[in-house]
Every structure is written in structure tokens, then in C-alpha cells.
């Protein structure tokens, strides 16, 4: 794969051959890393370095063709040719750039490398004008250009307009994280090990030995296996290691299995369940009431009045330790849940509709609620019982 890209770019610069290619792969599969690596390798060759103009565009930054054209002009250092005039109208700008690129020919002009990061976003530009023109240049006898697109969308070709698609050379480089768990462990070791040039050699030795030890530890392996099963994205591994390594200090010089375990727990935490931990008992009660409503009506939306009635039932029949709150107080608690986005209205609140009767949906799963209740400190027993079964008062 790497050779393919390298050869492609080399031919562009050395022979002045126009090309286009897409690098496709899921997030964190190393698309940009691959491209940067190849570019670094290329620039080590003198002949290439002096013969290549690079234009880097990003779909998140160049949100329309006008901005993109300006950026291209700027990166090609063409704006000084025309003073401030180039940033005139969009039309002028396009005509100007096309003119500039048309002037060149294969043998004498400096090749231009266009790198379009987040390529899929360029597809949504009006008429795909920029892509059409770039690909058209790459397929005609003008200034040699190579267009490299980076995207994580597998269906990118279907998004291209038929004329644009015809002009694209259909070179696709697919990147996947195809390594297995053994390689993953090796990557883990590489990431954590200190390099050979580390100043404090004895510490580096000690550290690396510890890393080696860790990689053979059963709990660490289990933890890594778990992460590996969830995602092969290496960024999540880096994130985990970063959390663990940040525990290291003078008194705690070496990373331990428990550090890693702690970090893993932290990164796996369920965000919504965490919010539930911080709620008041009244709010928990409301959530439990909603849970029961969900069970009874099979996930149909509910409104505040229904929740309140359910809560009242519980208070009247069962609760001895629970104080019977006024309705406005319950309403306040309910609105707090709304703000935390644990509950979500299914339609926009209009002015006319009464707040009590707005239809809502609970954004928590039963499992999450039960898990959160287990961890909730000082939860009254009858609330717990009520949560387990709506019929517990019988």
C-alpha cells in the first residue's frame, strides 16, 4: 500500500504524470499518518523536493468552493501575481485558477499535489465544481496535478456525480486495522517503552522491563483484550495509556496494572449512568416512575402528569420515609432532568402546550437505571424495591 502511494507520487513529480487517488479507511486507521510518512520519504529525495507544490485542503475548513479556491490560490502563492484582485468574485477566482493551471504542460510545469482531507465533505459542495475541475485537470494535458483524497466513508464513490466519477481514476487505497491481538500487544509495548536515546539509561531499562512485565500480566492482557474487542482504533489505546501514565510521579515511578485498570474503568464509564449518581432521591424516584411507564406502555411517550401520578401512587401506598412533595416541586425536579437531557421532549415545546402534557421520552435504558441504583449511595430500600418491581407495593 505504502509502495503504491509512494510510486504514484514519485511518478507525478519525476515524470509529470497526473493522477488521482482516494485513501479510504475508518477513523484511526492511519490515513493521514500514511500520507505524511510517504510525503516525508518523498521530500528526502532532492529531485522531488524541488519539483513539488503541495496544497492541503480540509473539508472541515474549506466549507465551500469559494473558500477552497482562495486557499488554493494562497498556497500556490499566486495571489502576489495579481495583487489583491484575485480575491474578487468567486467566478473570477475560478477562472483565474483554471487559467493558471491550463497554462502549464506536462514537461515544463511544476507538478501540484492536492491533498483533500475529509474528502467526503467536498462532495457536498455545489455541483462538485471543485472536484470536477481538479479531476478534469488531472485527466487533461495541463499542469500535472495529483489529487489525493482522504476519507473514512466507504461509499464515497457513490457520492461522486457521474461526470466527476468518470474523471476520477478509481485508484482506491483501502486501509483497515487488520492486526490481531498479538500485534496489538506489541503495539502496546512499543507505545509505552522508552526510546533507546533516553538520558537516564538505568531508569529506561527499569521502565522497559516493567512494560514487558505488564504486557505479560493476565489482568492487563484481559483489559487490553477488552479494549481490543471494542475498538481497533489505536487512538483509544493511546488515550488509555495517557490516563495511566499521568499517574506516574516521583514517588510512584513505575506504571502498575492497577493504574491501567483504573484508567480502563474510567474510559469505559457510562456517561448517562454517571449523571444519575448525582441526582436527588426525588429525581431518582421520577426516573423510576418513568421506567415503569415505559414497561407498561412499551416505550410509548409519556408526559409529566403521568409520571406524577405514578409517583403519587408509590408515595401513597408504600413510602414511609419519603416526604410527599408539592406538585410544583416535583415539576422543578422533572425540569432538571429535562435540562440534564435524561428526558427529551419528542416535539418542540410550543407556547400553547401546557408543560405538564408535553410528550417525553426517557433517554435511559432499564439496565442503566438499575446499575446506577446499585451504585447510588444511601438509597432508601423501598425506592430500591420499587425500582425492581412496580408491583412491589402489593
Amino acid at each position, binding site marked *: 500500500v505504502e509502495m503504491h502511494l509512494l510510486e504514484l507520487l514519485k511518478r507525478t513529480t519525476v515524470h509529470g*504524470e497526473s493522477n488521482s487517488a482516494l485513501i479510504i479507511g475508518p477513523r484511526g486507521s492511519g490515513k493521514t499518518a500514511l500520507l505524511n510518512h510517504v510525503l516525508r520519504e518523498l521530500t528526502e529525495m532532492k529531485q522531488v523536493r524541488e519539483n513539488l507544490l503541495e496544497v492541503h485542503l480540509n473539508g472541515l475548513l474549506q466549507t465551500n468552493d469559494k473558500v477552497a479556491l482562495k486557499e488554493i490560490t494562497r498556497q500556490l502563492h499566486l495571489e502576489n501575481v495579481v495583487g489583491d484582485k484575485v480575491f474578487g468574485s468567486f*467566478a473570477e477566482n475560478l477562472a483565474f485558477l483554471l487559467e493558471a493551471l491550463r497554462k*502549464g504542460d506536462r514537461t515544463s510545469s511544476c507538478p501540484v499535489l492536492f491533498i483533500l482531507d475529509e474528502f467526503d465533505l467536498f462532495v457536498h459542495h455545489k455541483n462538485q465544481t471543485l472536484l470536477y475541475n481538479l479531476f478534469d485537470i488531472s485527466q487533461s494535458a495541463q499542469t500535472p496535478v495529483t489529487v489525493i483524497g482522504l476519507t473514512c466513508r466507504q461509499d464515497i464513490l457513490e457520492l461522486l456525480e457521474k461526470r466527476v*466519477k468518470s474523471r476520477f481514476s478509481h485508484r482506491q487505497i483501502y486501509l483497515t486495522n487488520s492486526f490481531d491481538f498479538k500485534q496489538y500487544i506489541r503495539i502496546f509495548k512499543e507505545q509505552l517503552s522508552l526510546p533507546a536515546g533516553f538520558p537516564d539509561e538505568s531508569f529506561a531499562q527499569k521502565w522497559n522491563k516493567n512494560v514487558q512485565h505488564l504486557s505479560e500480566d493476565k489482568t492487563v492482557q484481559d483489559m487490553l483484550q477488552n479494549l481490543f474487542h471494542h475498538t481497533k482504533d489505536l487512538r483509544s489505546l493511546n488515550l488509555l495509556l495517557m490516563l495511566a501514565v499521568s499517574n506516574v510521579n516521583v514517588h510512584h515511578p513505575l506504571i502498575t496494572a492497577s493504574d491501567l485498570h483504573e484508567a480502563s474503568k474510567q474510559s*469505559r464509564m*457510562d456517561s448517562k449512568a454517571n449523571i444519575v449518581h448525582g441526582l436527588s432521591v426525588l429525581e431518582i424516584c421520577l426516573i423510576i416512575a418513568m421506567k415503569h411507564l415505559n414497561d407498561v406502555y412499551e416505550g410509548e411517550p409519556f408526559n409529566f402528569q403521568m409520571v406524577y401520578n405514578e409517583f403519587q401512587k408509590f408515595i401513597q401506598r408504600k413510602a414511609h420515609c419519603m416526604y410527599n412533595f408539592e406538585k410544583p416541586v416535583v415539576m422543578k425536579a422533572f425540569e432538571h432532568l429535562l435540562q440534564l437531557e435524561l428526558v427529551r421532549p419528542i416535539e418542540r415545546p410550543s407556547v400553547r402546550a401546557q408543560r405538564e402534557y408535553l410528550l417525553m421520552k426517557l433517554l435511559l435504558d432499564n439496565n*442503566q437505571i438499575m446499575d446506577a441504583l446499585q451504585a447510588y449511595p444511601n438509597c432508601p430500600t423501598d425506592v430500591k424495591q420499587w425500582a425492581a418491581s412496580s408491583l412491589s407495593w402489593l
Partner: protein
Amino acid sequence: MNTRQQSKVIYSWYGEPLSSDRKLRTSRYKGILITSERSRTETCIQLGNFILVEGENADQPFVAQLLDLYEDGGQQKHAVVQWFSHITEIPPNKRKLLKREVSPQEVFFDQVPGYDTDIAVETIIKSVMVIPLHLGEELPITLNKEQSFYVKQSWDGKCFKALSPDAFSKLKEANKKGGGISNSSNSFIPLDIISPLKKERESVVRSATKPKNVELEIESKHSASKSSLAKERHSQRVANGMRTPTARKKLQLNSPTRSSKGRLLGCEVLELLDDDCDAIVPLEPSANKRKVKFTGILGSPPKMPCANDKSKSMFDTAEHWQTFSDPIRLSPYSKVKDSSKKPKNLNREYDIICSIGHQELGSQSPVSTPRSRRICAQKTSALIAEQVSILNTLELNQEEDFLSSSDSSYSSSSEEEDNDVLCTPEKKTKSSRMLSTPKSSRKSSVHTPAKTLKKTPLPGTPKTPRNATPEIPRRNHEAQKPASILEEARLRLHVSAIPECLPCREEEFQDIYNFVESKLIDGTGGCMYISGVPGTGKTATVHEVIRCLQQAAENDDLPSFQFVEINGMKLTDPHQAYVQILELLTGQKVTATHAAVLLAKLFNTPGPKRKTTVLVVDELDLLWTRKQNVMYNLFDWPTQKHSKLIILAIANTMDLPERIMMNRVASRLGLTRMSFQPYTYKQLQQIISSRLNSMKAFEEDAIQLVSRKVAALSGDARRCLDICRRATEICEFASHKRTPEIVRMAHVTEAIDEMFSSPYINAIRNASLHEQIFLKAILAEFRRAGVEEATVQQVYHQHIALCRIEGMQSPTLSEIMAICSRLGACRLLLVESSNKYLHMRVRLNISQDDVMYALKE
């Protein structure tokens, strides 16, 4: 509004009809009267006179001789002319046939067939002199450069010939006759005769004030006036919806009495002023005051000659300053007396008036009186220069330099520049700073014209950014030549490589060629619609046709034509099409609406000799607008009688006219259609072979495999070439550092697989375990619900169940959401926006079978 109406030009017949034709309902006339309403002047142009005719480009009016004048049944006034060609109108490759330098004043007797000699009378600008000379003769030197042309040779489109004695004598005759007639008639004085008079007058005027400037300014005016005349006229026409005269022209057409005033002595002028007071009252006070002001500044008693020519100049222009209103009415005599008595008081008065004057200058449209303002500006320039020379002689030199340069570069703008330049110092002196900062005042004056410039800028100024030629820097090292046979093959197989011939499109080529050729020969217009899926050689074939036609035109087998190409995809907006067409045709850069007007005029008015235009509109469907006015105009022009426009419209869909065009647009497009079928595998095979040109780089079977594969899929030649190119790479890579190999079946198969393989299966196989389980959970949920859509919550429950079966730790909901968004990002799943969280709906982007196949170990 008012000025526009005033500056209308009326074309009317001179004399009674000579003869009339009952059948054709035409009547011939012997002359035409061009009346400018505003200046109340008339010019008479008679048969045999030489005229300037509006060209497509405002800078270059055509030269012609008036042969016939007639009015047709529809009351349209027509003229029949004999054309003369400027050297610039002759194709560059033919110019070398002349083997001598040609002055811009020289024209050629035009015998090129195919130019329409029947023009609309409204396109005539004015009369000029065309003097026949023998081949060896030097051009006589005259002051009157813009008014006279010389003809030595004739040009018939192929070669230059010396004028036949017959033609020579006829031209000579025509010249004499033309001159004689205009001399004899008192009321109509030809331009070329009046202008020397005027010049004389001007020089008299100038000599009184400052002899230094005279030569310079007159000189520069000459060089500029011709082009500016046509241009002013052109731009005004466009602005005013045809026929407005220029201020310059009016002045040149001054009545004899007016021009003779130039020679009157100062006192006489004052008398005259008094006499004419009723007619031109509003202006006079200001004129007088201005004069007074200068004397006031100089602090010397009023100098009579200076004052006189000042007032006279103002008088000259008075007529054009009708909008000027001055509340103070003063008689010239009293004013002069006043000035000598109490200059101080007047100084203050001038302040007021000066400010009014400035406002006036600013508010006046350039159309109204550029000429008159210029005169006044020149006068003031002379005066100011005098003042400044006392203070700073160096400054003066710069001033002159600037004046001359700006004058010669662009007259209509320079007039305004002059004005600005000269107004600024005026202000400065007035505010008694006395040019303490000449540099800065200069600067501001240089900048202001940019704002006041309303006309199309001069194409010739190299400084303007519009003419900057953008270019990608050249490479530092030479591009390597292909070293091996595979590299050579790759080069030939690149889509950009231009093949020697276009195989498999011979029929289409011939059809298009015949269509364009016949229209070219007939000198008419027409449309052709070409359709076909991408990569079937539409654009390539059309370009080939154009190339062949150009070749033929060069060899003089066909009348020459202009080729213009636009591409809907390369326009940011459909209306930009007008801008591009106009720019490619004439080099003008204007806004879209203006360009539409100019183009409509260009194609709709009969007359001015024009080559046929061949317009290729690629990606036609992109020119669609809601009102479809762009398409409508494009296809309407060729139907006009005089348009000489051939349109080749290219698009992908065969039934585009029926699908997206309104009836009136589709009807204008006509029924001349051609559709390019996708290539068959045999054709593709032939294309590859012809490109390879008997180079032994591919196995025969390999080529056939590629062709069959592509033909089955799309018939896109580009795809075919790309696969072959990729196959050479694979081959090269496989046989690395071994004996060079030729491309075999295996390489081609690999390349095809690479390009057409579905990425999804591989993506699923390389996904993480939980991602795979999630997909399985989706499948299970779909099966359970019987609907191909599920919420995350439902899938989550399935996922947990699956995890229990596998005996794995079940993930939290946050992790499930992360998995879901990852799969959504690479579009294995289609997901809703994530703010719905649990209730976000999920769909598969691939078939369930594919997922099952991929997940099966």
C-alpha cells in the same frame, strides 16, 4: 435621465429617395444625416464617403466605404459597404506575407468573401478619410491621425495584392467627391475639416496661457481620441439603450461661428458673452469667478489675456454645463471690474462657488461632458502649472509627465484624471497651504480615478491585474523521459495524452464536421445537441472537429471562424456563461447582466463584419436556471438572421431537451441531435490498441479482458485507460528488477479487482469484535421486528443477549453509542443525528446477505 435623452442621435435620410423598388419595397438614398439632438449638430454622410463602423470591440471600429443606402420594407435603414481591414483583423499567420511593417493607420482593401456587407445604419459612427497610396509611397505625416487612413494593398483572405488601377482611381475619386460635397454645403462640415480649425483655436488659446503645454497636450489627445471615441459611444449606447452621441463628437461638430470665436480677441469675447448672456446665463458667473479667483491668488491685478481665454473656454463649454445652477447672477463686465476692485471679497465668494463646482464635477456623469470638462481642466492645469512652477519647478515636471502619460494611455479616464489631478491642487492653493505636500496630493489624485472609472478599462495597460498572466512556477528539473516500454505505454494510455486519431467515432466526427462546415460556408447559424454518457468521447470528438476545421480555414478551404468554448461545470453560476463568452470573443470583462446585453447586441444587430462564431457549450445541463433564460438566449441567438453563430451543446442525457427545457427553449435548440453510444468492447479494444500504436506492452487477451469488463459495466473509455495504466504499474511492480515483462491477464485481473471490488466486506471483516457483534445484533433485531430499521436501544438489548451467549462482558451504552457512530462514519450503517441517543434509528447501508457473508468465518 435628462442628459441621456438630450444626447440622442437620430439617423435620417438625406434628400429624397433616388429610386425605389416596388417588389422588394426598398428605396435607395444618396446620403444619411446623423443628427445629435443635444449639440444640435448634423453630419451628412453620402454615398462614397468613408466611415467608421462600430465593431464588436469598442476599441476597434471598422473602416468601410459607403456604397449604398436603402430602406427596406420594415422601415429599417440599411447600408451597403465596402470593408477595409486593419492589420489586426488579418490572421497573424498571414501577416508575414506582407514582409513589411504596417502602420496602424494603414488599412487594406477588403475582398474577403463571406463578410456581410449589409449593415444597419445605426452602427455608423462617423466619416473618415481613406487615401489611396501606391505601394512604394511613404505615409504622409498629418496631424490628423485618427481621421485618416491609407490604403495601399488589397486583401482577399489569402494574399495581399496591390490595388488595381481601377480601384485606386475609384478611391481617389470618392475621396475628392466626399471632400467636395462637404465643402460646398455650408451647413454640413465634415469632421476632418473642422478639427484642424479647432486645433488651431486651441493652440491659440494655449499660447496665451502657456506655450509649453500646448504641443504635448494636443499630441496626446490625437493618439487617444480615436479609440476613445468609439469606446465612449459604445459604452453610452449600451448604457442608454443605443444611440447617444459623445460629448467629444458634439464639440468637433461645432458650428463654424462657434469655432471661429476661438480667434476672437478677449474683449470681443466679453462682448459676445454679454450678447449671448440670455442663452447661457447660468454658467457665466462661475466662469468669471473662476478667472477672478486665479488673479486673486496670484495677488496681482487681473491679467486680461488669461482671464479672457478662461472665460472663453468656459463659454465654449457653457452649453454643456446646463445643469450647473448658480444663485448669483452677475454680468461679465461687472464681474471683471469687481475683481480688480476687491479681490479679497471675491476670494471668499469663490470659495462657495468652487465648492459648488466640485460638487458639480463629482455629480456629473462622465457621459455628459467629458470633453468640456477636459478643456476646463487643461486650462486650469496650465494656470496651476504656472503657479506651481514658481514654487517648485521639479513638481511641474512631474505634473507634466503625469499628464502626458495618463493622457496617452486612456483618454476618457484621463480626462477625469486630469480633472482630479488639477482639482486637488486647486483646493490646496485655495486653502492657502500652497502645495506644501505635493506628493500626497499627487497620490490621492492618482487613486481617485479608480473610483470614477466607469467605462471598461483599457485592455492595453499592463499594470491592471486583469491582464496578469497567472502561471504555475516551472519545475526545476526536467521531467524524466519514459525509460522502459511500460512507462512509455503508461504515458500513451494516460487520458490526457492526445491520440493521433480518434478511432471508433468516425461517423459522429463526420456528422458534426459536415454540420459545422455547411453552416460556415453558408454563413448562417445553427444548433446541435450532442449527448452521451461520460467517457464516450463527446468533447474529444468536437475538439477534433474544431481542430480540423481550423486547419481547413488556415488552408483557405473554409471561411475562417472564431472558436469559443465554455463548460457548465467550470462556471460558478449559469449567468457567468455570458461573461466567459464575451471575454473569449472580445476580451472585455464585464458583469453578467452587462455581458448579456452586449452579446445580444453583438448577435442580433445586422452588419458589422464578423467571422462566424463556433460556440461549444459543454455540460449544458449545468446552465439550467429556473427561468432558463441563459439557455433560451444561447439557443435564440443562432436563430437570428445575422448572428452567424453555431452552437454545439454537449450533455449527458439524451432527452435533456424534453426533460428539463421549457418548450420554447427546446424548440430553439432544434432537432439536430446526435447521441454517442457507449463504446462496445471491440471499440474499446481498438482504442487501446491505437493508443499503444503497435507497442508490445500488452497481451492481446489482456486488452480484450479489460475491454469486455469495462464495456459490460459502463463503456467509459476513461475507465478502460485507467485500468490499463494501473495494470502496467502492477506489472512493473511484480517484475521488479527482473527482465521487463509485458502486461498479462493476471495483472489486468488484479487491477480490475482493485478498482471494482466492494470495500464493505473487507471493512466488516477487519472491524473489531464488538462492532461485528453489533452488526449481528442489528440483523437479529431486524429479523425479530420484521422491519429493516431499529433504534439503538433495541439493538443494544440484542447486543447484550449476544454477549451473554458468547460469555463476554457486555458493553455499556456509551460504548455501544461509540461503536454505532464509528460504523456510521464509514457508512456501513446509516444513522440519525446522535442527539436522539437511545432512540436514534439505525439502518444497514449494505444488504443483510453481505453482512452475513462477511461475518461468516
